[in-house]
């Protein structure tokens, strides 16, 4: 990938972010009610204090000015203060983010191990009963309500057998949430991997490897796997979106700290600066991760040209 192509890809991020941020800004202006009253949440104050609060929030200025300053602040990572805790939103998110990252990584590892295994097994023996069993399992993974499976896991392994703590933020408290989140991911990954393997197994170099008399394991392990992992991995970006979405649910079920839990509570408490901050930051992270992956593939695989 040429420097020019990389730069082009980086610049294309700007309109994308502008559109998503504009959407969030517009959505927040559609919230019914006076933002100052929402901020005060029922506490009565004098008219002068109202005016002061209005000026501090900036809602007394023309909408265009508000929009521009929103964009400028968002670019600096400043989303104002929480209506509830009065702390800067960015600080709140930064405090919660490590927990979500741990969970996302745990979920990703579980999802990858489970999904890839199912997909490879199904793809190596396609269209038979093995394939049917694996793909039905994958479909079940996609159909399982992750909050339900999370509650079942807690019930069996934490409350029932006592193998892991119900609550907490240590490593052993991360196991069940990771499984719960990973199952959600594994279904989709299994389907992708299966199709990638089937496609690769039909290629000439696999036939050559077979003709050379290599064992089945060697053909799959050395020749097929390497080429088949690429298509599912290109979808890493999409996996990130699924992980963030899944984290919202998983954190709620397991009462874990994290930005997903922060977002849900903020919506319930009508804490709009926090809602706005979490949505803008997760979306921006998603956009940036995808660009990085894109560029990385352009460098690794010269056939991919942006």
């Amino acid at each position, binding site marked *: 990938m040429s420097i020019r192509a990389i730069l082009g890809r980086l610049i294309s991020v700007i*309109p994308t972010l502008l559109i998503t941020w504009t959407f969030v800004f517009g959505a927040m202006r559609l919230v019914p009610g006076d933002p100052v009253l929402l901020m005060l949440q029922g506490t009565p104050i004098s008219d002068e204090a109202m005016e002061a609060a209005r000026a501090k929030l900036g809602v007394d200025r023309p909408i265009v000015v508000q929009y521009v300053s929103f964009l400028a602040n968002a670019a600096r990572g400043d989303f104002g203060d929480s209506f509830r805790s009065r702390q800067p939103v960015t600080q709140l998110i930064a405090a919660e983010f490590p927990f979500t990252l741990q969970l996302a990584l745990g979920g990703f590892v579980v999802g990858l191990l489970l999904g890839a295994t199912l997909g490879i097994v199904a793809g190596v023996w396609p269209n038979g009963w093995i394939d049917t069993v694996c793909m039905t399992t994958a479909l079940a993974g996609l159909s*399982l309500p992750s909050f339900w499976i999370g*509650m079942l896991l807690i019930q069996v392994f934490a409350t029932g057998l006592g193998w892991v703590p119900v609550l907490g933020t240590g490593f052993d408290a991360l196991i069940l949430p990771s499984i719960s989140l990973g199952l959600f991911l594994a279904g989709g990954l299994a389907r992708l991997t299966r199709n990638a393997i089937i496609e690769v197994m039909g290629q000439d170099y696999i036939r050559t490897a077979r003709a050379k008399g290599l064992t089945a394991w060697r053909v799959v392990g050395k020749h097929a796997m390497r080429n088949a992992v690429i298509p599912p991995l290109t979808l890493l970006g999409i996996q990130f979106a699924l992980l963030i979405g899944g984290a919202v649910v998983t954190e709620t079920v397991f009462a874990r700290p994290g930005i997903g839990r922060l977002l849900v509570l903020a919506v319930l408490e009508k804490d709009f600066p926090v*809602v706005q901050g979490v949505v803008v930051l*997760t979306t921006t992270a998603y956009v940036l991760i995808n660009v990085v992956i894109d560029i990385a593939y352009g460098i690794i695989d010269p056939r991919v040209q942006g």
Partner: protein
Amino acid sequence: MKAANLTRRPWFVARLLGAPGAVAGAVVIVVILGLAVLAPYLAPYDWNANSQCRRLAPMTAEHWFGCDLFGRDIFSRVIYGARFSLAMGLSTVAISLLFGSLLGIVIAYAGGWVDRIGARVIDAMLCFPSIILAILIVAVLGVGLLNAALAVGISGIPRFARITRAAALPLVARDFVEAARAVGAGHGRIVLRHLLPNLAPILIVIATLDLGGAVLFTATLSFLGLGAQPPTPEWGAMLNAGREYVRYAPWTMIFPGLALFLTVMAVNLVGDRLSLILDPRQRDRS
């Protein structure tokens, strides 16, 4: 299109039901629909009547699924819940499908800068993780069952728009569109009478593939407390309400969750089969 003709052949249903999974799925869907329609006749107790039994009482011959915190019969509530799951799923998919497909066709048909900008906006909107987008919309509209359904429906619009646009682009350049224009057909007529019918098979496929997810997604919002509110017997909301008492009364969450899982699985099994028959290229889904 060739795929469109398939639906008219008598063996379509036979092929759809050619796989054991799809048969099982179809049976479950019929059962769920039956429960939804006949709920008042099938439910042994009033879904909202307190003190039908001891609080959090376990499963008995009178109360098959046990009782919840208010002494309500869980079996009756699960039966009534069937009304919400499929209705919510279908209405959210209808919103995504209607607005998404129209948007996709219109920008593809308009072409030029409308298409370029439209495609850009759609791609940008797809950068919102869909649950985050739905939660943002709920934050604006307010918490509630209908708002949650609306939010899930709206958050699906970019996805449907992108697929429809991609499918419509090659059609727009075809001779029949030119011919229709030549005989004086208006834009609206071309879009609705010429382009839309040709896109029907792919739209049916994506809508069916989306339905299971939509049912799950709406229930998820209810579970988070953003959708259906108590005492509505919606499965996700029932799980949310039972969360605090799971330890003492696991049946409060096992049965609503099982019902939800079976419904989504059934819809996915049928959807998978349908997509295989209607469009072999749609076999994989991320």
